[in-house]
């Protein structure tokens, strides 16, 4: 292993280790705050006709009546061994359910991210080179409009167009990638499109501004003076210096896509973690809520650790510590 690689791995491990207290704090707060939720898991299980005595009895049986710190330690003891408990009603192992649903959310988030980047970055480069032109203005207006469209509107409009009117894509549902790749692609299309509406516009605006600033640097003028073509300058000279900022935005976007896609998942009935956390909160399924929070915080920590290291990989002038 080379010295720089060792250095990167060490830095990555330090960042992950620094994230552990964050995971512990957030999951503990989730345990403590669950006491403030109206109703209780026992009430949810037993139904509306349960007596207070029955609810108290079940709370005691499941340990729901213990102080928050005791409940937390009990949960943590299981979690470090990979045991996150079972779902409230179907009694499925939470870890299994979470893995399956996280895989769905990851696939959609990654696909949305790649699609958004594939559209936004070339477009932003092209428009930065034509800054101030009519077409640049048109794209900027379009990007602003796309940013202004809330997800709950885009899901309805795109569903109406592609599912109901054109009937090209399924309205809801999910087929796992390894079960039928083609059907998976058809089912993933609408959720990815909906998530990409916002992301394309966001990446376009950030990247265009970055590229514009880079294109005004002296080394670009120097490249132009040497007679390099515009496409060559854009790809070879403008793209790389702008990447750190874009990488930061990608990190933020990925966390948004992984944690904030519950509207898209609910609307298209995609069994991801966004939809699951909504249902779990409504159902008082605390084991599931806790596990999802743990996973979400871990994702944040890992993504930002990767972003930090990405800076150093892109720009060797930045020191890795």
């Amino acid at each position, binding site marked *: 292993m080379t010295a720089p690689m060792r250095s990167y791995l060490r830095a990555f491990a330090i960042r992950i280790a620094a994230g552990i207290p964050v995971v512990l704090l957030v999951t503990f707060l989730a345990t403590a705050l669950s006491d403030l939720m109206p109703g209780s898991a026992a009430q949810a299980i037993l139904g509306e006709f349960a007596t207070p005595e029955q609810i108290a009895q079940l709370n005691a049986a499941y340990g729901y009546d213990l102080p928050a710190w005791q409940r937390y330690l009990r949960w943590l003891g299981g979690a470090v061994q990979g045991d996150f408990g079972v779902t409230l009603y179907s009694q499925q192992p939470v870890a299994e359910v979470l893995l399956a649903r996280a895989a769905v959310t990851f696939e959609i988030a990654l696909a949305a991210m790649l699609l958004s980047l594939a559209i936004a970055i070339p477009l932003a480069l092209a428009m930065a080179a034509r800054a101030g032109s009519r077409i640049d203005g048109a794209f900027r207006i379009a990007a602003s409009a796309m940013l202004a469209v809330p997800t709950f509107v885009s899901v309805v409009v795109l569903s109406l167009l592609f599912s109901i009117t054109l009937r090209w894509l399924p309205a809801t549902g999910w087929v796992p990638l390894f079960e039928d790749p083609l059907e998976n692609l058809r089912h993933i299309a609408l959720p990815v499109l909906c998530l990409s509406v916002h992301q394309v516009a966001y990446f376009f605006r950030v990247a265009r501004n970055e590229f514009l600033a880079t294109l005004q640097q002296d080394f670009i003028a120097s490249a132009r003076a040497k007679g390099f073509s515009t496409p060559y300058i854009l790809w070879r000279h403008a793209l790389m210096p702008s990447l750190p900022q874009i990488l930061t935005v990608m990190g933020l976007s990925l966390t948004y896509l992984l944690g904030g896609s519950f509207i898209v998942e609910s609307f298209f*009935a995609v069994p991801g973690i966004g939809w699951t956390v909504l249902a779990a909160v409504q159902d008082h399924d605390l084991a599931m809520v806790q596990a999802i929070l743990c996973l979400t915080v871990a994702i944040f920590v890992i993504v930002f650790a990767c972003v930090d290291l990405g800076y150093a990989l892109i720009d060797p002038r930045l020191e890795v510590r």
Partner: protein
Amino acid sequence: MSMTRPGLPAWLPAASLLALSLSLPAAPLWAQDPVRGGEMTIINGSDIKGWDPAVTNSTYPGGPMDVLDAIYGFIVYVDVNGQVQGGMAESLTSEDAVTWVLKLREGVTFTDGTPYDAEAVKMNWDRAGAEGSLASARDWVASWAAGMEVVDPLTLKITLPGPNAIFAQQVAELVPFIASPAMLEAAATPADLKPVGAGAFTLDSWDQGIGMTLVRNPDYWDAERPYLDTLNFKIIPETNSRISTVVQGGATMMAGYPYQFGNNAEAPGVTAKEIPIRGIYRGYFNFEHGIFQDPRAREALYAAINRDRLMQAYTQTAGYEAPGNYFGEGSSYYTADYAVPGYDPERAQELIDALAEDGKPFEVEIVTYPNSDMKRLAEYMQQVINAYDGASATITEVAMANLRDTCSNQMAYDFCVDGGALVSNGAEPNISKLLGTGGTLNWSHYSSEEMDALLEAATRTVDEDEIRESYVGVQKLFAEDLPFYLFGVDNRFLLMRDDTGGVVNSNGGILQKQYLFKCDGPCAE
């Protein structure tokens, strides 16, 4: 194309029969012969919470009782005409409305191999009525559970403490599911209960919040059925997404209302089927405290709001006609002699002024849950009430899951609106739940000895004239006391693929799933 439903008792002399006895369902006459095999998917907005056979609620297709029925099967069920049909049992009959005889079918077993016999039924009903039971009908079952006697493995005799002509309907609505006693005894907590029944299907897999897959029970008592190999219940929270899925063919059917379907009901390959339940839309007055304790305030609300327009605001569809009383014109109990107050803004203002003079300002807190339909309804009411001099309304939204607790338990409201249409095409058991003292649907906490006596009298006789007389009295009292705000009626509907055969609804909409089959082409009306 036309089709008839199996076992429908349109030919029955309802007045002379207490309950129906059928050894086998009548031969179905479908638009095409049923086809064996295939798969169907019923979609719903939320998942079930457990397999307790005694916990029953929500009779809409795809709802919790529909899922339980697939596993356990109705012991007897109420058809769309309000008549009791044999289900897992052959019959539940009585000659005098006091002694009831349940005749079970021979050779029926639970999926764990234990017999579905009189002992099993007795054990389930004893459990439902026992102290600590989670059944909504616990008290009712407890009132007659001691009168159960196992005559032989296929016969259970139930001697009621008094005559009850609607006992079979109540069983079908309140305790219709029987689970394996071995499973029930083995379960230490509600979460340990497993779906071990003798119904048409068995559970293959359940992914909480996503859906479940059921497969044909090879040992179902009716060897010909179920026709389907696989039945899926899929959860799709958004109404529009559910509709799109059916329209596209991603699922077989969903329950809902025409105002939700819009023109999707005319989409190719799709049809809408009406389930005649005469569901009533209702709001509850707080009889324990606040302005609506005063009968003038209740009358004022009826007079202040045009209920046709209110329904239009609620459903975004015109053409509704406000109901006059609890029973509709199609009911044999209906009388035109008594009606709730109609829209009369001048009278409403007079009443509001009179209340204000007595130091009772017409200030109304409307409590409902944050759903777009309910919001439109509450906001329309608020707007109309605020337009009257000296009247004002505020809206408080609580989570749907907490509405019952807020309204019925805490009584923290003046006017509380629950969504959905409540089945009222037959009289019982809902009429007693809504109007009887302590009734589980009586969120108003309305209490009238006279009303209780009339409701009880109607269930204690088998004489149709006496029953009608009681219910005419109920309508008179309803128009006088205004126990709740009756603002609309509607039927339930299924939006479904037009190649869906064997749609038989019971108990307000639940599908008798053993009859479902996939046609070769369009076959549903």
